[in-house]
């Protein structure tokens, strides 16, 4: 266990202490105790970055967990991991700081909040630093779990519970799929280590399980990263407290899917399926998210769909960038490197501006009591700091210079235009769609940024819309968004700050082996790169977006604008309730509560199974040799016996039934006599007598039973089932007897015959077997009788008094 191991575990350890802090130091807001940890971890990861990963080095250490199953707690810190680690700890620290001012220490259950948050932070660090797939999966599910706990933080609200359940169901579904993908990968490569899997990527590529493994892993990534059609959980997760939304649902957890795609790019990429699925789903999500965001009336709703859309953007860039693994040489793959670079760059940018926007909107919510854009307005002069933060965040999101969003948007357009040039995989046919969809989606992005900004801050301030006195937030709440917004500007003006410290090492991790022999990725990023087509596209976006906003009144009466909810939500709700009602129906149809039905199921199943087995192995046979002859009197006996048996169901008089069944028992005893079993005959006679006496006793004690005398419903099915059972027993008896005779299997009884007297000093072999050779059976049989007798006594003697006898 190295320090890095403990760094991942430390949030969990601190989470254990949180309730004690909360309970015993109530004067200080619990958040302050939490705040130190992400800050310290951030410092640690910064130091790791400067010392190791920015030079292209990796930190790797392993500790055994379940070594016999090849599960090692292996940490692997490279460029990609450190990028996420810095995001998680950095934004984590800011979010904790923000939450200290956001959550009231008197009104809220802070101990729960910080325990869940720390659990999430540790799990997220575990996901991105683990090299072992099973460990990754464990942390992955922990993020789902802690996310659901955080969404349902205000568990008194139905909507919170609904949102938590929805996100849990969808992300856990994806998690299971991902586990399946990992299992397939393991069966191909024989290792759970991601790095070793990457090393044997050729093996994976050659396997015919390649496509299933890829799709299963992608399902995990798409559900976590809220890609279409699994994006529906994210808007409902907005019921969480705003710090949670800012942290989990914009900056970190939803990027776990992107991390997974980036991490597995060296394993799966370079094939058309990966390219089309990842970039296609990403592009559609980008378009769908931006279109849906425009329709939202709730500020957090806008941001949720905007997050979905931006995640789609990054996903599509990762898809396009995977082409560089296909063109593993030549000049043109450098173009697709740029797509990966853009993805990483936008990932950082998105975390900064989306985090600040969420925090700003949290402030608005906190200070005004509403997030409805129809009630808000005119806050510009009242909340100037929040106004500035939102302005910069929204401008960056919309892609306006000089903020970082502008650069990544330009680079995104470049990537999409270059995707059009891909000379393989049918791109000649559909390639034009890539920049067109991207461009249209950007127009919507610009539009919802305008809506978000202008509907909140401009217009007339109406104090009657708000429940409380509206004023600027306290300074503590503003610190975190201000830091993030400063980063937005800094990364916008000096993007190369990130280039060689973070982006290039991350590219090395996503595209290993592409650059060899000391070459390096060319990652110079400039704010201004000349009058290219991309610039005109951005101008078009701004112009069209502004036009759409100005004429918003005209198109806002359209039905598509009014319908706020996603069309996939009814589908989800419907299938969930159909699942419940469907399983209830099946249960009701199957579990009837009637003994007869269960017996019928069992009998039918046994008969069919045995019949199939016999048919399958052609086991029907009739014993021919070694059959004992039938003496004349046996015909009479058997005939009488069968007649007596068959008559039983047709008798309605119970007294007669008892007598007939008694006669049956005595006939069995006569059979025993005929087959030379004196002890059996004796026992059978005695026991049958006692049984008949018992039946008569019970009969005597059931005076009302006589009257009932219901004629049994002659049901054809019952008859068929019984005939089936009877025929099956006969057939099996015959063929097993035949099998025994044909194969000359001898009885072991010769031993008993030979040794009864010599070893046990008894001449009655049956009795010797019962008490000597196999005496244990007899002891237990006596025990059975004793238990039955005790049971009978208990049933008769012990009665519940004082409450209802069931």
């Amino acid at each position, binding site marked *: 266990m190295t320090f890095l191991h403990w760094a991942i575990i430390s949030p969990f350890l601190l989470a254990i202490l949180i309730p004690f802090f909360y309970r015993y130091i109530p004067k200080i807001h619990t958040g302050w105790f939490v705040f130190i940890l992400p800050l310290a971890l951030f410092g640690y990861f910064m130091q790791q970055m400067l010392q190791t990963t920015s030079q292209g080095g990796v930190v790797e250490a392993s500790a055994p967990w379940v070594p016999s199953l090849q599960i090692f707690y292996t940490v692997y810190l490279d460029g990609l991991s450190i990028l996420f680690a810095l995001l998680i700890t950095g934004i984590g620290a800011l979010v904790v700081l923000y939450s200290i001012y956001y959550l009231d220490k008197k009104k809220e259950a802070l101990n729960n909040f910080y325990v869940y948050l720390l659990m999430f932070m540790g799990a997220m660090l575990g996901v991105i630093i683990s090299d072992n797939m099973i460990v990754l999966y464990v942390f992955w599910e922990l993020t789902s779990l802690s996310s659901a706990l955080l969404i349902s933080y205000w568990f008194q609200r139905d909507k919170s519970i609904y949102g938590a359940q929805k996100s849990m169901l969808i992300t856990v579904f994806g998690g299971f799929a991902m586990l399946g993908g990992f299992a397939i990968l393991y069966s191909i490569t024989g290792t759970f280590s991601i790095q070793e899997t990457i090393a044997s990527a050729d093996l994976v590529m050659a396997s015919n399980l390649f496509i299933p493994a890829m799709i299963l892993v992608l399902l995990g990534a798409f559900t976590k990263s809220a890609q279409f059609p699994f994006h529906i959980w994210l808007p409902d997760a907005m019921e969480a407290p705003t710090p949670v939304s800012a942290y989990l649902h914009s900056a970190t957890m939803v990027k776990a899917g992107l991390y997974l795609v980036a991490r597995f790019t060296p394993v799966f990429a370079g094939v058309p399926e990966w390219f089309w699925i990842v970039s296609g789903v990403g592009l559609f999500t980008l378009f769908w998210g931006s279109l849906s965001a425009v329709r939202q009336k709730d500020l957090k709703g806008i941001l949720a769909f905007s997050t979905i859309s931006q995640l789609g953007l990054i996903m599509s860039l990762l898809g396009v960038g995977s082409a560089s693994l296909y063109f593993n040489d030549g000049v043109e793959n450098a173009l697709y490197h740029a797509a990966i670079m853009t993805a990483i760059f936008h990932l950082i940018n998105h975390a900064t501006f989306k985090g600040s926007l969420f925090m700003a909107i949290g402030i608005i919510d906190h200070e005004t009591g509403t997030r409805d854009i129809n009630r808000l307005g005119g806050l510009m002069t009242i909340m100037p700091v929040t106004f500035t933060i939102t302005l910069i965040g929204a401008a960056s999101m919309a892609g306006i210079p000089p903020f970082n969003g502008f650069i990544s948007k330009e680079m995104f357009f470049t990537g999409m235009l270059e995707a059009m040039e891909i000379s393989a995989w049918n791109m000649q046919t559909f390639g034009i769609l890539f920049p067109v969809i991207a461009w249209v989606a950007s127009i919507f992005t610009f539009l919802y940024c305008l809506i978000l900004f202008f509907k909140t801050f401009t217009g007339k301030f109406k104090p009657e819309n708000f429940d409380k006195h509206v004023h600027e937030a306290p300074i503590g709440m503003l610190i975190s968004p201000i830091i993030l917004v400063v980063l937005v500007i800094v990364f916008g003006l000096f993007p190369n700050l990130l280039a060689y410290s973070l982006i290039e090492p991350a590219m090395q991790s996503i595209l290993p082996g592409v650059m060899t022999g000391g070459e390096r990725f060319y990652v110079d990023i400039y704010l201004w790169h000349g009058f290219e087509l991309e610039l005109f596209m951005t101008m078009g976006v701004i112009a069209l977006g502004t036009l759409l906003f100005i004429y918003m009144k005209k198109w806002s009466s359209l039905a598509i604008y009014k319908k706020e909810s996603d069309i996939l939500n009814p589908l989800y709700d419907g299938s969930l309730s159909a699942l419940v009602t469907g399983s209830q129906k099946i249960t009701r149809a199957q579990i009837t509560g009637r003994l007869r039905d269960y017996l019928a199921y069992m009998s039918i199943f046994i008969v069919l199974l045995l019949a199939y087995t016999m048919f399958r192995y052609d086991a029907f046979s009739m014993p021919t040799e070694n059959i004992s002859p039938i003496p004349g009197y046996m015909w009479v006996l058997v005939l009488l016996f069968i007649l007596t048996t068959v008559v039983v169901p047709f008798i309605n008089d119970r007294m007669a039934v008892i007598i007939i069944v008694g006669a049956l028992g005595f006939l069995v005893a006569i059979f025993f006599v005929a087959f030379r079993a004196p002890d059996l005959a004796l026992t059978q006679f005695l026991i049958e007598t006692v049984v008949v006496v018992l039946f008569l006793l019970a009969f005597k*004690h059931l005076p009302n039973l006589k009257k009932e005398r219901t004629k049994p419903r002659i049901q054809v099915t019952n008859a068929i089932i019984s005939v089936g059972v009877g025929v099956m027993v006969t057939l099996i008896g*015959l063929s097993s007897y035949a099998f025994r005779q044909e194969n000359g299997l001898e009885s072991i009884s010769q031993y008993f015959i030979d040794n009864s007297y010599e070893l046990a000093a008894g001449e009655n072999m*049956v009795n010797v077997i019962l008490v000597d050779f196999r005496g244990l059976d007899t002891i237990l049989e006596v025990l059975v009788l004793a238990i039955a007798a005790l049971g009978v006594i208990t049933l008769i003697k012990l009665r519940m008094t004082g409450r209802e006898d069931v």
Partner: protein
Amino acid sequence: MEILMSITVGVLFMVATYLMLSRSIFRIVMGLVIISHGAHLLILTMGGLQNGMPPLLGQEAANYTDPLPQALILTAIVISFGLTAFVLVLAYRTYDAHKTDDLDQLRGTSDE
């Protein structure tokens, strides 16, 4: 003889199954009694029904019938007797408590 006995056992199982599929507890108990007869006879038949002397050494015979199935059946008879007695009393108590021996009425509420 074995073929004839196998068919007889089949008839016993058939009738027992039919009785056990009925609604009355009493008939089910009867079915239980008959199915145990069937099982006992099946064990005996499968052991082989060769003509030999009863398994008593005093007979000084050349061949005896197989003693092992007989011992097994003897155990089974006693156990099935214990079971029958218990089930019978259970049925009686059920009737006593609910005043019905119809299983459909003993099923509980219909919504379940």
